[in-house]
């Protein structure tokens, strides 16, 4: 229990003097009233308690037989415990009733607020608007990571299409804001199987945002070759080569976007713990062949390997879910990543993205100092 102010002051005075003011006995006496009863778990201690109660009861009522009083005590204790339990359960139910009312209210409030934000901050598919939003920010993440979920309601194809649209949206926002690296985490890894399709979806989205003068794009997944597209001349439109020249000539007035390259990385649960397990396997094999001593394994080595084969540490992680749950996100890489989520939010929206960037700009890094 929380100490009452008098005892707390006594304790603090003692602590300030390096615990030399009081003897251990005095200190124990100070804490005694706050301690819970000795745990009933150990069977060895229960006879002792019984003896005490027995002694007390026999002294108070000498007429009753010792065994009967003991039983009497026990049942009364049982009844009391039972009542206490019922009481606690009642309070528990009440707490949860109130809490579910509270959380409904909170969700409603957040839903309204999010609606407001999404009207207030809207991109209108114009990079200029996004750029204007971002302009005031002190710093931007170099590497942004998002967690998306595959909404697997029966049919996979519908979920996949939605997921691809979401990826394309986020990628377009990143390109507009000037974030060069985006990693998209999706737990099942379903998206990775559709690398070319994802590339197509993103480049179409970029076209609808930027028109002819769009940034170059590469989409890749760990251990898979990247799909690149040169700036403004995607391999889908072989005739767009002229546009490429046009954009490079117009780079004078739009140097922000035209020299810009966006790389999108798709990762999944297997790039998390499993990749570390794979690394361990390789290291163990090397060690078994005496190519490496276990002492050679350092943080730098592991970091270099994981950065090389999976990805570097993202600066900002945006979750579009209602609460923070990492769901098997790569553990090594999120060391100092700023984690952003909007409470009770559902769905991928620009306002979440923008607020995440704003939050990141305000955050300060101390690194334990």
């Amino acid at each position: 229990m929380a100490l009452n102010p008098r005892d707390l002051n006594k304790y603090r005075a003692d602590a300030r003097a390096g615990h030399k003011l009081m003897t251990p006995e005095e200190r124990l006496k100070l804490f005694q009233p706050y301690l819970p009863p000795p745990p009933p778990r150990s069977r060895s201690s229960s006879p002792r308690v019984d003896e005490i109660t027995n002694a007390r009861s026999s002294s108070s009522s000498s007429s009753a037989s010792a065994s009967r009083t003991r039983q009497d005590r026990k049942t009364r204790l049982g009844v009391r415990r039972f009542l206490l339990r019922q009481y606690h359960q009642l309070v528990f139910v009440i707490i949860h009733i109130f809490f579910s009312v509270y959380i409904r209210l909170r969700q409603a409030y957040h839903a309204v607020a999010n609606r407001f934000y999404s009207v207030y901050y809207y991109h209108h598919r114009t990079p200029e608007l996004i750029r204007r939003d971002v302009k005031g920010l002190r710093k931007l993440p170099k590497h942004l990571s998002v967690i998306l979920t595959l909404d697997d309601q029966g049919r996979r194809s519908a979920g996949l299409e939605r997921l691809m649209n979401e990826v394309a949206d986020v990628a377009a926002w990143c390109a507009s804001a000037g974030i060069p690296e985006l990693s998209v985490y999706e737990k099942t890894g379903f998206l990775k199987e559709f690398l070319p399709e994802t590339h197509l979806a993103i480049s179409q989205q970029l076209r609808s945002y930027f028109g002819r003068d769009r940034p170059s794009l590469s989409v890749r997944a760990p251990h898979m070759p990247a799909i690149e597209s040169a700036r403004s001349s995607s391999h889908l439109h072989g005739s767009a080569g002229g546009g490429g020249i046009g954009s490079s000539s117009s780079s004078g007035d739009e140097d922000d976007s035209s020299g810009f390259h966006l790389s999108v990385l798709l990762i999944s649960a297997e790039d998390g713990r499993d990749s570390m397990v794979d690394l361990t396997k390789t290291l163990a094999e090397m060690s078994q062949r005496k190519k490496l001593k276990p002492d050679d394994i350092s943080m730098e080595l592991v970091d270099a390997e994981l950065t090389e084969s999976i990805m570097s540490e993202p600066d900002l992680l945006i979750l579009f879910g209602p609460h923070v749950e990492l769901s098997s996100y790569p553990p090594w890489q999120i060391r100092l990543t700023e984690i952003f989520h909007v409470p009770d939010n559902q769905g991928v929206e620009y306002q979440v993205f923008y607020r995440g960037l704003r939050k990141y700009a305000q955050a300060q890094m101390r690194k334990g100092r």
Partner: protein
Amino acid sequence: MSDLYLSRIRNWFLSSPPAEWALNRLRSTLVGALAQGPIPGHVAFEMDGNRRYARSHKIETIEGHSLGFEALARVLEVCYRCGVKVVTVYAFSLENFHRPKYEVDGLMQLAKVKLEQIIQHGELLDRYGASVRVLGRLDLIPPDVLEVVERAMAATAHNTECVLNICFPYTSREEMTTAIRSTVEEYSTTPRPHSTAFSQSRITQKLLSKQAVSPEALESIRESPSPPSSDEHELDQDHDHDDAVSTATTLHSSDSTTALKSGCDGKEADEAAAAGLEDSDDNGKTAASPRIYPNPETITPETIERHMYTAGCPPLDIFVRTSGVERLSDFMLWQCHQGTHIFFLKCFWPEFDLWHFLPVLVEWQWRQKQKARDSERARRRLKQE
């Protein structure tokens, strides 16, 4: 001015005996009530904001840390009364060594004094059945503190009810690296010999005699009795050994020992690796030759988990970070990863109390209920289809 008066009056009121009694009743009722629902098995606290609290209240930094310790005691009490099995706290990061020396020394002294208190009042922790464990780079702790740390761990080791993990000089990346390193060590130290019903020497002789006839036949023999793939993924440390393995490994005893020792990576080393590959995940009982290693392919996340500092602890359910910073900051990265609910709270750690922890716990319980309901619904839908 009126603010000051108000807070005085409030303090006076709160310290009056009836109010105090009522508050205490309320606390124990709430704790008792919470214990009726699902209870997280493992909770981690990142105790952030002691210094900022000290700065905002214009007290010494080290005072802030002392208040932080009091907050920790309060929270531990709530946790253990609710029935939380393991509480992990982040007390000191490896990065914290970069702080000014006087503060580092102060923190070390604080830790020493508090741990000495724990040793002195062992019965306090016994009441909760709690044992203290210090996790991290113990070799970086100054020797006088380390001695106290070890005594405190020994003094409470007999308690099994619940555990307090204090991450002392700790970072999660260091923990993961150590786990990887010790896994590699485990897999590259030679297992001890064992005995089966089959005589290995007899098998070897038989095989060698065949080898003498045709060296190519060796390959087929080695390949054919290789354990099935399901066996390779066997997690169990002491499942029975395939004798095919011992044949394969004893077979190359003459040539691959030297090959390995010289660090050569030709065909022979490959063969030795193949021998290792065929070997199943087994520590205790393998053939006598010194080059049999457990198969690295049998390493699983659970293997690495066993080498973490938090080995044996239930999976992390709740992660709480105070002071409004929304980062993990190198704490419990490996553990936070799956079903952990992460809460970032605005308050500074010294202010942290039941009133801050209660909403977290209730929300967690609510989400658990929600999750159960969702999965129930999904199952029903599946059944209908």
